[in-house]
Every structure is written in C-alpha cells, then in structure tokens.
C-alpha cells in the first residue's frame, strides 16, 4: 500500500514538475504561429545594441548637466548621458530620455487567461500575451529572468506595432491582450499605445505587474486597462529590500489607487519557504486586502519553484499554501486561491454566499463554469468580476 502511495506521489511530483517546466519555458520565446503572423511586414531584429530603436520616453524630466530623472517608477533614476535606468531599457542620449523597447516584444503567446492568473476575468478564454524585455526590480526568484533581468540587446526582439498587436488578437479571437511575463511598467509607453488601440477595437488590455509604478504614469495607463494583476511579493518591506531590490509602500499605494479607480484587480502572492510564509504575514496581508481593497479582491497564494538566484530553497509545501488560504478566508477574504498546484480544490471558485462551487478549475483549465449572469446558480449571490 505504501509503495503504491509512494509511486503515486512520485508520479504526481513528476507531473507537477513537468507542468512547471512547461509553464516556465512557455514564458520565453515566440509562439511559432504568432511569429509567422507577426513577421508579415516585419522581420526578426538581430540582437545588437546598434539596432535598438529609439522612441521618446514619457514621464521624465531634464536635470542639469544633461542628466534626466525618470518619473516612471519609485526608483526615480537619475540618469547621466549614455546611461540607463535600473530597468536597463530607458536610456539618456544627449539629455533626452528614450525607451528602447517600444514595439519590440521578445515574447508572444496565446495563453489561458488563468495563467496570468486572472480567475475572475473572462474565464476559459485565451489571452494574447506579450512581453518586451526588462524589469525595474530584481527578485532573486524571478521565474522569467532570461527576459526580465536582461537588457534589450541581450534577447531577440522583433518589431510589432500596437496596431499589429491588436490585429493579432482579433485574428486569433482573444478578447484580451495581456502585457505580462516581464515588468510592463518599464515598457509603459508601449502598454499605453497598445491599450489605446485595443480599446478602440473592443479588446481589453490586461496588466500583469509588480505594481512598482508612480502615480502619474499609472493614472495615464488606467483609462486603457481592462484589469490588473499585481504581484504582491510580500507584506514586509524588508523582504522587498533584501530579496527584490524594491519597496513595499509604493506597491500598496498602487493597489489603493487601483481600488479607488475601480479597476478590476487580482493579487498574487508567491509563497517562498522561510522568506514570506509566516502566519503573521499572511494575516497582516489579508487584513490589508479586506480593509483597504475589499473582501471581493481575489488573492492567489502560489507555489514557489527554485529559479534564477534562489535555488537553495525547496518548493513550497502545499500545506503552507492551504494555511495561507485558510487564514485569508478567516480574515474575511471571499476568494483566496491556491496556485501552481494543479488539481487542488482551492483552484476553484466558491460562492461566498452559500459555498457552492461556481467555477471548477484544475490549474489553468476551467472544467466547468456554472455562473449565471455573474451570479451563483444556487443562491443568486453576485460573484464580482468581468464575466462578459
């Protein structure tokens, strides 16, 4: 009996590992079919810095001596001539600031929207998902570091104008375009232009972000965004500083601004053993979400896998994720989830009114969507989200 259980556990871990590998590999590169589409009228750009395109950056101001101050994120990089900000994708040339990644994605796929993850936005649909290189923080556990923690000349990019992105989404009938995989904040100009073009075409633009963005650029982006997912790396500033080269406060400010604006927002917390997995932290985080964002905000507690510079820690025990889920629910959250654990019951959505399962999922797949006009079919409780 025990041998049989061992075998099951072994096979399950293999399967989970295989899924994880697929997910990780899926974040880098270009879907062959899409690449072919994208290549019509555009060609692959060789990865040399001399070929990087220059598009005027937004959200910056000139300083004395030819320097500039970037206003995009809380880093507020002061950048001398010929230098770049921390993101590595915005450069000062002769006292003017430029983005090097506008219309230059390095990755494009059609993913299940649940992969972002959005569980309350058009479940079961595909999302045209793309990324340009770069990030404004540096998480030691970055899952997509090959495209996020590099400069644009270090990855292969190709030209894809905002109108072409929207055309691809329409051609492949995806109701959303997700700016994802890397940190879209650092390519906000591209996001804004995609969003504007997509809105005209009736396609929603989704932002999958760390939330490390200043108020002004966020305010400019919000009108073109359909929904936002924020990676809340931890509820401790120390974690942000030591592990991510970032800060907690600006991320919380972003979450409050999203709430105030009424933008549909989901939160992901990647739970890492020993670093951000204490019960106190789960409790503090849940209280913040309930009190300041509302109990209807979905929070996904997802499983960590060793990656990039954080390879000395094991995968998160499933039990830890369950504890996080239970604490969040006890604190009043309606929709806590367990992620990166395919087949777990907490992948599914349950009605906060009567407890009935309203959307059954396993991992990224929707097995059954029982919602009736956004309401629980049993008790009629409204389930918040974007359902059509």
């Amino acid at each position, binding site marked *: 009996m025990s041998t049989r259980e061992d075998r099951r556990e072994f096979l399950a871990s293999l399967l989970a590992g295989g899924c994880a590998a697929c997910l990780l590999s899926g974040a880098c590169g270009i879907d062959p079919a899409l690449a072919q589409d994208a290549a019509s009228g555009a060609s692959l750009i060789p*990865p*040399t*810095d*001399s070929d990087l395109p220059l598009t005027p950056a937004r959200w910056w101001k000139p300083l004395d*001596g*030819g*320097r500039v101050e970037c206003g995009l994120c809380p*880093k507020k*990089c*002061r950048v*001398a*001539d*010929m*230098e*770049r*900000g*921390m*993101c*590595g994708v915005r450069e000062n040339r002769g006292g003017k600031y430029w983005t090097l990644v506008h219309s230059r994605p390095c990755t494009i796929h059609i993913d299940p929207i649940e992969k972002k993850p959005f569980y309350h936005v058009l479940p079961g649909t595909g999302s045209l998902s793309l990324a340009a290189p770069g990030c404004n923080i*540096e998480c*030691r556990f970055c899952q997509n*570091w*090959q495209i996020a*923690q*590099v*400069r644009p*000349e*270090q990855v292969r990019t190709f030209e894809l104008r905002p109108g072409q992105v929207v055309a691809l989404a329409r051609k492949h009938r995806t109701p959303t375009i997700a700016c994802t995989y890397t940190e879209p904040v650092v390519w906000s100009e591209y996001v804004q232009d995609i969003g504007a073009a997509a809105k005209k075409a009736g396609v929603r633009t989704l932002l999958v972000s760390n939330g490390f963005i200043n108020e002004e650029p966020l305010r400019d982006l919000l009108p073109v965004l359909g929904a936002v997912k924020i990676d809340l790396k931890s509820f401790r500033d120390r974690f942000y500083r030591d592990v991510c*080269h970032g800060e907690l406060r600006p991320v919380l400010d972003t979450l409050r601004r999203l709430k105030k604006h009424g933008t549909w927002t989901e939160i992901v917390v990647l739970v890492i053993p020993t670093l951000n997995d204490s019960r106190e932290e789960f409790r503090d985080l849940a209280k913040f979400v309930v009190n300041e964002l509302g109990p209807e905000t979905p929070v996904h507690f997802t499983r960590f896998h060793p990656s*990039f*510079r954080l390879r000395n820690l094991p995968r998160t025990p499933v039990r830890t994720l369950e504890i996080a889920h239970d604490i969040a629910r006890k604190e009043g959250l309606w929709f806590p989830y367990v992620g990166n654990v395919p087949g777990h019951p907490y992948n599914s959505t349950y009605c906060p009114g009567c407890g009935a399962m309203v959307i059954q999922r396993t991992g990224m797949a929707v097995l059954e969507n029982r919602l009736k006009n956004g309401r629980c079919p049993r008790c009629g409780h409204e389930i918040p989200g974007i359902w059509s």
Partner: protein
Amino acid sequence: MAIDRERRRVLGKLLAGTLAGWLARVPLLAGPRAGGRKGAPARPAAGLPDVVVARRKALQAKGGAPGAEAVREALGAAIARATGAKDPVAGLASLLRPGDVVGVKLNCLAGRGLSPRPELVRALVDWLLEAGVAPRRVILFDRSTRELRRAGIVPGAFPAGVRVVGIDNDYDWTPREWGPSGSCFARVLVREVSALVNVGVVKDHDLAGVSLGLKNWYGVIHNPNKMHDDGCSPYVAHLAAYPLIREKLRLTILDGIVAQAHGGPARSPRWTWPWGGVIVSATDPVAVDATGLRVIEERRRELGLPSLAEEKRAPRWLPEAARLGLGRDDPARIRLVEA
C-alpha cells in the same frame, strides 16, 4: 539470488571506483601538481610600490593628444617601475605564466577622447607579444563591439592574431552570486582568459563618484544597470572581489592623459583636461583608484566645484574594497612613487 549478489558486487565496485576518483581530486589526498594552482595570481616581487604615477609634459601637449612615442615612454616607465623590472616587457613577463591567455578589459563607453587611447593599448599589446604571449592569446575586450569601434579599438590597429572582442550578448548564462548581488559574466572572462589587465580612464561618474579601475568591471556582467543605486556601493567593491576577477587580475592601468572631473561617465569636453599621465599598479587595485580619485578631487577644487563628498557622490565602495582586503584606500598608507 545469485543475480542479486552479482549486481551488488558490481555496484559496490562502481561505488568504490567513484569514491576513489573523487578522493583523488581532494587536495588533501592528492599529490602536489606541477606549476601550482591554475589561475592563481602571479606574485609580484615584494617591496614593489602600491602605485606608480608617470606624468609628462609631453603628454599634456596638444591638449592631450600627444604622439604615440610619448605615450609609450610614460606607460613603459610606469609598468617597469610598478613591477620592479628593467623594462615593461620584463615587467609584464614577471606577471604572467606560460600559456596565459591575457584579457585586456577596456572602458570605451565614452568613445574616442575619453576611452583608453589606441596608442596606449597598442604599446601594451606590443610588450605582451614581446614578453612571449602569442597574438591569439591576447584579447582586448569590452562590453560592446560598437563601443570598441567608436574608441578606435579595431583589429586593424593591432598585430595580426590579436583578438578584439565585444561581449555584446556573449555571456555565460549561468547566474552567479557575488557579494550582495548576482549576474551572468562575460564568457570571454569565464571561459577564455586566465590573466587580466584592467585598463580604465580617469573620469567622473555621475552615480559612482568616479569610474577608474574597479568600476570598469561593471562591463563584464550582464546586468550593470541593477547595481547603480546607493552610489554603486557596495557593488563595485564586491564585484572586484569576485574570484573570477580578483584571482586573474595582474595589472591595472589608468589612462589619465586626458581626464574628466565632472559630467561623467560620458565625455563632456567642458570638464576634461590634459592631466598628462598614467597611473599603474601591479599590486593594489584599490590604491590605483584612491590615487585617481585624488587627481579628480584636486581638479574639482581648482575649478571651484564642490567635492564629491559635498555632492554626496563620494565613492563609498572604495573603503569597502579596502575592507574586503583588495588593497589600500588610505592615501597616507599608499606607497606611491613617480616614474
């Protein structure tokens, strides 16, 4: 049962063989190897100065555009003095081991006029070849082919066989932890060179305070933009202390024939001046930078500019480098000689 016993016997032998092979690699049990540990730094003779400064009026001529002979003379004198040798060829030979592949890391970000000048690099290359290094074992490298080209470092400017390598995108894509950070390092550094000569320039740096020798190592990692906050401290120090660099470094040269006291790291002609010298060390990469820092601070005083400390740009990574044991940052303790 017989099959099981046989299987155990074979597995046992395999295990024993593996263990023996592994133990043989452990230094405590293995015999000494000829030639010492591969990659260990050559030890310069005791009693050498920490830093040598060679300034010449001839180098200040024509606004810092002297002839190649003047450059060669000053650099040669400095290398000879820094290595305690009769001439630069013997000096370089004393720093190298037979078979070394010598990587010369340049700093060409600012383009011609504030990068190591081609005639200085040419003199260094000529002496390396005279010292017995085969041309194909000399690699001039920096972070991009474009920047090398803009600084005039092109294959045609050097003897046949000498390689000019822009790192561009050629990194060893395995993240390595160093100090407080982590990076992928240039493959040429990881896989090819066994000895390093660091050739920087004497210039101001907006964030790091100065960009001299130690800061030049930012050019061998894939993510230097992540290390610019907090005045690049302590990153500069810890990167220079990383074994891939520290254990291979043999010589540091700063081209200060034209230096820049403000407005770096790009070239800003308003702030450049013909200092007219080179700063060299075979023993102490921290002392070289401390000396270059003094040169810049003196010039800033002459110009009536606030000090780097007053501008809150003092290179705090310099004392950190000293703390890590890379060398001396206290000018009072640096044995500086002129050549």
